[in-house]
């Protein structure tokens, strides 16, 4: 582990602190974790901003994400190319958006993106069914899945087009008191 000066320049620290909810120490900690995932790929010295991307399979092997049923979607959403290859920028961005101090609006936007499996900017019935199956690991019978999804759609769909737009989703999330505490990755 190098000391602060050799990993990031001060200017880079300022940029990260302005663009995320992390302090210097936490950014260094994150760099340590990123490096741990692929020590031979990730350089210790980030002062000249190397463009190193780690594949999806490596990122989802982290203990914080390993057991999360939505881990693939999370990594895909936060990666720039949409395929799950994350640079350090994306990595920090992911943990910043999911940290304790991130505001509700930001988390709602990303939650919507994560649950939108077919990336059409709407949550349709198939998206809901996929979400539910991952939540319960396929333990519910198909009729129960269908029932729960139609009830959920009924409750949240305000404009009656049988799919959830972002405003429907946002409205529903605003009434869920636990959202901020559950949608939160601890690192």
């Amino acid at each position, binding site marked *: 582990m190098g000391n602060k000066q050799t990993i990031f320049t001060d200017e880079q620290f300022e*940029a990260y602190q*302005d*663009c*995320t909810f992390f*302090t210097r120490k936490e950014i260094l900690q994150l760099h340590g974790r990123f490096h741990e995932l692929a020590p031979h790929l990730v350089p210790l010295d980030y002062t000249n901003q190397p463009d190193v991307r780690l594949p999806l399979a490596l990122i989802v092997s982290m203990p*914080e994400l390993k*057991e*999360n*049923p939505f881990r693939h979607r999370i990594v895909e959403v936060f990666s*720039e190319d*949409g395929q799950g290859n994350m640079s350090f*920028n*994306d990595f*920090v*961005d992911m943990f*910043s*958006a*999911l940290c304790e101090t*991130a*505001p509700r*609006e*930001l988390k709602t*936007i*990303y*939650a919507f993106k994560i649950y939108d499996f077919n990336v059409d900017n*709407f949550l349709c019935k198939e998206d*809901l069914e996929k*979400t539910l199956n991952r*939540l*319960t*690991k396929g*333990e519910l019978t198909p009729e*129960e899945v269908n029932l*729960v*999804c139609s009830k*959920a*759609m009924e*409750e*949240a769909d*305000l*404009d*009656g*087009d049988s799919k959830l*737009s*972002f*405003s429907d989703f946002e*409205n*529903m*999330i605003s*009434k*869920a*008191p*636990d*959202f901020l*505490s*559950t*949608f*939160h*990755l*601890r690192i």
Partner: protein
Amino acid sequence: MEFSELQRQSSTIAHGYHGAQQLMRLQSKSVVSNQNGPQFNWGSPPSEGGEEGDVGPPKDLRERPMTMRLKRAIREVQQMRVPVVTSWQSWKRSKAKSLSRFRADAGGVMSYVALWRKALHKIGGHFGGGVQSYFMFLRFLVVLNFLSFLLIAGFILIPSIVFRSTSTSNMTVDSTGPEVCKVYDPNLQGLVVFYQYFLDLLSGTGFMEYSYMFYGYYNNTVAESSGFHYNLPLAYLLTSVFYFTFCLICIVARMGSALRVAVATGSGAAGSYSKMVFTGWDYGCQGDRATKLKQKSIHYQLQVDLEEERLQKKALSLTLGQTVGLCSLHIFLMLVSLALIGGAFFGIFKATVFSQAQVGAEGILGLFWVYLPSIVITTGNFVVPFMCDQIALFERYSPSTTIIMALFRSVFLRMISLGVLLFTLWSQITCFKDSPKCELCQYNNKEYPCWETRVGQEMYKLALFDFLITIAMLFLVEFPRRLVVDHYSCALTRWVGRQEFLVPPNVLGLVYGQTVVWTGALFCPLLPLINTLKFFILFYCKKVTLFSNCRPAVKTFRSTTSTIFFLVVLLFGWGLALVAMIYSLAQIHPSMSCGPFRSLTMMWSIVPNTFDTLSLTTQDFIFYMGSQAFSIPLFIFSCVVLCYVAALAAVYGKSVDLLKAQLKLEGRDKQFLVKQIEELSREMGVPTRDQLDTFDTGAAN
């Protein structure tokens, strides 16, 4: 042309959902593909955009849903742009930035100091929010008790120690009354049997009785030396009153934040399925075991919700005869459970009377008699809820109602059993039935030469017994159970299974312990300190048992509503202790042989007595505060404020409903217009939106 009109209309509707368009040129191509449908424009900033230089410090950048590369690029653009601001504003902005940096760093340091932060973090990750809220409640109680102890130590304990050691310049007022009432010999023997110390420690007698521990040791000294005037009895009384107020303020403040969240997000009943699906998963869950449990609990919760719907549908379709039968069954079983609880109360009453009559018995048997009320209460607290649970199986309420009923029964049982104990003690001391004993000194001075110490001892025994039983349960029940279940697998062990960490009974135990402390604090000033130590040790014991012996409960407790529930139950306990304190202060004659109030007919009368010694202007001022000329305008003013706040709340509620209705209408309008466009474009042979879509995606690939 009509078609272009409609197209313009549709595009204005679509654009109406977009924010400002200034930073569109910085978008990456993957973000916005479909311009026609209503959607959130990921690219545009939620506020007015980065053009204005003096608004939006870089902090806004963190809250935008863009990739890091974009954010850094925007930041560079913002920094390169020469700000058209005065040097004063730029100085202000840089100071604000360094202040927020400093606050973030300070917050990081403070979180190290916060008690048990890492432990709570780990518990939350493995067992979920409900169990974590129990431990946070426990931490709150530890801190509350410690602060109360500091309060009591500062105003009662330390002055007492100081006055005892410098006993020259004090004056103690001797009480007036029959000589026999002033006899109090707290049994200071010379040579005792070796185990007597241990027995005394457990029951608060012997060497512990006449010590700073209990009320009887404090004198009614009024210290006066060179301008320094300290009235110990007054300090004792006012500290006790302030202690109660302080605890109330802490509890209400803590409840306020939780209530605000609960009220803002409305009732949890509506929209539970969608919430379950989208917010059910705890992203902080770590570990294979915790994840499987979480999935099982979500599965269970959904099944419970579906089951409740089925039951509700069935309940609506019942015939009259079946409804009557169900109601009578409910009433009958309610009476049975009330009879059980009443039987427990009667048992406690009898045990207390018997135990108080056995004062003076020696050895282990003596200890047993002395602890009899605590034993009966604890046994009742185990047996009665278990039997009520068995009864609940026949009651056929819906699952959530069953849980709530069980909780209310347990709370009722625990609080009222403590109340029965207190009532019994009080009736013995002031002899409701047997007048001749109390004629002489207005209290039963034969059996209770110093009754406050006896009450303090009783509360001390309750607290200690509660603690010992919890530790004993840990070592004698939970650890062996885990060993047996893990190493022998037969049908019985599989049915019994590992211990489940049930949050509600544990919380009720904490509330019971705290209520005992509140009731006893007036008579045993060191009780908050003992309770701090007890809860401190309890935290570690419970943590150990949680991680080694327990499996997480499948039926989880919601963390936000549970905090409010715990604090409400704590307030019940506080209210009970308050009633006990007011009764002691205002009704019972203090002992004439011991304690700081020995010369008074009522504990509260120290206040009017001191009041008379204040200067006339102070007296007039305080009289004025209590008079009608002041209190009636104050009352009217508070009513006005209350009405204003209530009206404001009603108006906000109405506007929320209006906005919801408007949202629905706009959605329908939009759908209607889009359908119109599609029809028209079909009629005119213009490619429709879907055809354009396929063209777009074809071009992009």
